[in-house]
């Protein structure tokens, strides 16, 4: 019923998202070339507040039954309500409420037993109602906080979460060449959680560290898919500078930034821009700016004269949103039909900080190593490998998971470890073979790839291919003695260069190499060269001293 694309004239809003604001003069504040830039910057205290729009990964939209899905044909996921067809009414999607509650709990918020929806009015072509349904005055979650580690994990900081509100996403406008704008309403009405922090972050680095921690939590509790390129995790940053900590400067809002690197750049750029303005005697204006991904600048978005007054009013078509707890749910006739906050709390998985803590404490991994596993949901795999083979070195196991298992998953675009056919038990077996010198690193890698292809157990692969190496000390000693004896008879010079005092000299190495080569030849390459090398050295030392 909805035409495939709504067409309209090119929009006039200067700097609207997607429009290249070519008519706005951009002055670049290139601070890196300024001498003493660092010194000057240090006199200023930047303050950053963040608003994160995280798309809820629910099956259907926040207030309609249309599917929530990326990359569907334009306007194929649009219900009458999403297109603001007259007479249609919003019906709250319980799944979205549940996910907002989970998010609130994970961010230590107070979940509001009763929350309300409001209308926020502004005309924009991809927002067909002429208003957005949001939670302005009484959001579902309030007064939380999040502890986040700085980039290297050395310090843990805290940011206050002001509130989490449920709201509708807008559609998308595509400004085509020529005078036409195309509108796709597939995204219109998808549920968003707007997570608002207090202005407590003081650098781009901290902002990114906080956002990464938040992102990890949302992934972990499964409330947002977090695909950055699809705009599922978008950030507005409110940035100001001041000379004293107690007083905040005029804030500038930069809207709609996706990607941690971009966020970092935007905040850095904006701080420097504001410092430059003030130091040149200017005044920072309160305004909304957009980030230009191509140039890396921020540019003014809205004409100051048409400053938005959103004319908030309560949404009359939605009754108050109630959630319950263990004690209040008992009074209901059908408790399973409502959201029980206590139940959601019990269902929350372990959060990234706890997981990292466990990995660091129990396995002595570094912060970076622990973070790496946690961010990729690989901690259980790692722990299982360690449980199967206690005497393995955790760092060796971590390294193997990173260099082989995850590399493989990335190469084949696998989303979970279940799709990689090497179980933790199998990997443990493989690493034990390596640990016990039954195979060398090269064979281990070959065994791993074979295991993926054939789904066979590493022990079986090594055995069937006869890849097991001769590494037991007695046999190796015997083989090396034989080789040395042979060489002494056939080519006495071969070993004459060995110097027990300088085992690492070129001549010594050459001598060892000759012995090993012969052993390899005699054993059809089945010798564990590492073991053989040690043994040969000892034998040659002994021979010299005796």
């Amino acid at each position, binding site marked *: 019923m909805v035409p495939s694309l709504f067409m309209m004239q090119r929009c006039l809003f200067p700097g609207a998202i997607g429009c290249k604001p070519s008519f706005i003069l951009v002055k670049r504040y290139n601070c890196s070339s300024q001498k003493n830039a660092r010194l000057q910057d240090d006199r200023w205290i930047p303050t950053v507040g963040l608003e994160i729009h995280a798309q809820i990964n629910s099956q259907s939209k926040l207030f309609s039954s249309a599917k929530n899905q990326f990359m569907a044909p334009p306007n194929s996921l649009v219900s009458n309500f999403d297109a603001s067809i007259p007479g249609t009414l919003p019906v709250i999607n319980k799944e979205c409420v549940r996910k907002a509650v989970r998010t609130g709990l994970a961010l230590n918020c107070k979940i509001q037993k009763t929350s309300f929806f409001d209308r926020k009015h502004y005309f924009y072509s991809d927002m067909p109602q002429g208003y957005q349904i949001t939670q302005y005055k009484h959001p579902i979650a309030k007064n939380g906080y999040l502890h986040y580690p700085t980039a290297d994990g050395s310090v843990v900081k805290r940011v206050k979460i002001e509130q989490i509100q449920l709201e509708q996403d807008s559609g998308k406008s595509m400004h085509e060449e020529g005078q036409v704008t195309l509108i796709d309403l597939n995204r219109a009405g998808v549920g968003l959680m707007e997570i608002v922090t207090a202005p407590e972050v003081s650098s781009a680095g901290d902002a990114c560290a906080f956002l990464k921690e938040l992102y990890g939590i949302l992934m972990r509790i499964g409330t947002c898919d977090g695909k950055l390129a699809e705009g599922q995790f978008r950030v507005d940053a409110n940035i100001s500078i001041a000379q004293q900590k107690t007083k905040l400067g005029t804030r500038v809002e930069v809207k709609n930034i996706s990607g941690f690197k971009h966020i970092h750049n935007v905040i850095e750029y904006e701080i420097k821009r504001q410092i430059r303005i003030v130091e040149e005697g200017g005044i920072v204006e309160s305004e909304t700016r957009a980030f230009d991904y191509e140039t890396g600048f921020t540019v003014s978005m809205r004409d100051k004269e048409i400053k938005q007054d959103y004319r908030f009013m309560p949404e*009359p078509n939605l009754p108050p949103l109630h959630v319950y707890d263990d004690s209040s749910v008992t009074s209901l006739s059908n408790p399973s039909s409502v959201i029980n906050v206590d139940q959601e709390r019990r269902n929350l998985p372990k959060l990234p900080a706890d997981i990292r803590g466990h990995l660091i404490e129990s396995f002595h991994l570094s912060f970076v190593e622990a973070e790496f596993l946690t961010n990729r949901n690989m901690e259980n795999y790692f722990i299982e490998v360690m449980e199967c083979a206690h005497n393995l070195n955790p760092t060796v196991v971590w390294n193997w998971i990173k260099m082989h298992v995850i590399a493989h998953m990335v190469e084949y675009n696998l989303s979970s470890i279940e799709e990689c056919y090497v179980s933790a038990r199998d990997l443990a077996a493989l690493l034990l073979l390596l640990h016990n010198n039954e195979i060398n690193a090269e064979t281990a890698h070959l065994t791993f790839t074979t295991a993926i292809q054939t789904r066979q157990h590493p022990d079986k692969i090594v055995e069937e291919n006869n890849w097991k190496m001769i590494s037991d000390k007695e046999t190796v000693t015997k083989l090396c003695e034989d080789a040395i004896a042979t060489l002494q008879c056939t080519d006495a010079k071969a070993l004459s260069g060995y110097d027990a005092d300088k085992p690492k000299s070129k001549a010594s190495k050459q001598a060892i190499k000759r012995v090993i080569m012969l052993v390899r030849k005699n054993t059809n390459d089945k010798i564990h060269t590492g073991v053989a090398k040690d043994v040969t050295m000892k034998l040659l030392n002994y021979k010299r001293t005796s």
Partner: protein
Amino acid sequence: MSSTDVLMKPLVSVLQMLRNRVISTEELLHRTYTRINETKSLNAFVSVVEKNDNLEFCIKDDRSSILKGIPFAVKDNFSTRNISTTCASNMLRNYVPTYSATVVKKLTDAGGTLMGKTNLDEFAMGVGTVDSIIGPTRNPWQYDFQHPNPDDWYIAGGSSGGSAVAVATGASYFALGSDTGGSIRLPASFCGVVGLKPTYGSLSRHGLISLVNSMDVPGILARCVDDVVFIYNILSGNDPRDSTTVQGKVEKVVMEENPSVKDLVVGIPKQYYGPDVSPEIIDCWKWAADTFSNNGAKVVEVSLPHTQYSIVCYHVLCCGEVASNMARYDGLQYGHRSDGGFTEEMYAKSRNEGFNESVRGRITAGNYFLLRRNYRKYYEKAQKVRRLIQTDIKKVFDKGSGKNSGVDVLLAPVTVSTAPQYKTFAQKTNSYRTVEHDIYTQSANMAGVPAISVPVRLSQAKLPISLQLLASNFNEGTLLRAAKFLENASSFQHPKFDF
């Protein structure tokens, strides 16, 4: 018009006739189409469903259905699948919905035949059914069908005037209207039919094009209380598509032939006595109070102290919601769209051409009330006053909390006068008319309580005088019982119009 006009019979007896094959559905439809044609000059319908479409439908229709093909009409602000829904506005002149409102669907599913879409004030903003793109609807009372005078006729009342006229003339057995501040009760009273504004939330608003979401209620216009009860029982109940509808089951209303009012306490709101009310209406009101009293009801005077603020409060809340609800009409997805210009220019032009002055005025006022700097002063204050009005009414109905309480129904006028003449009415502005005519009806919308307009007698000018009854939330049973009693006691008769 024949002396035994089947089109003017009560629903229940026509259903009996259809069941006994005294008359066929086809015959009934033919006659209804003829009636619609005869009364065309009243301008009750914005659009009429093609006769062949309906005949085809009624032949296919299962005779065992509840409504057996009974003709009905729907105000043109209810969405009807594949049938244009204009809201009597240029904005939606060519708009055809792809879905039907829940209440419309319930009626067609029950076997009713939709005859057409009835006239209203644009987007239901008005009290006269005069501000419409198809022109005003005329009241059949004292209307000279043979020699119609273009200026000398009575207005139908609004905004559901088309529905009231369709029912009054027999062009439909019943009709759907919407009531936001009195839009069903007022035209019902002017046209001498029964008009029920049910409890907010008892009938689904899904598909009703919004005026004021927090006060809009779909309602029923019919010629007698029994017919209203019959249709109410089909329509009431929860709708998952409207989150503000009642949770759980709504009890069906069961009506006796001659209901007693012995157990009822009838409240007379003293603030409703006003110098502006016509003496004929005051007289009728007194008679009704006496009649209740004489038949065993306890009649008491009650106070609704905040009634006087109702009009101003309504105006602010209404405009605020109107400004918001109308924001969607930007000409992009549907509705009127002007050519050329950049986006904002196109919006402005489309909206300017699409809405009439009254709608534009309310949008402007509403946006003003909602501005950040004005919100507390107007909108928030109006919400607080609304709560006071609600509390007044709640208190009156509350059993066992003191003197000014324990009332079962309130008895009040519907409006200050009988239907005014068009030439007098047209001289006043839309907003002035609203203030004048919605004064006794708005409180019910503010509080959400059910209310009904019942025709009682004729004025000296031979125009219907009706009275209003109000009850507490979801107490339609008591309300309709009192209405039926009043109907039985009154001398009102549906006229034989001289088509």
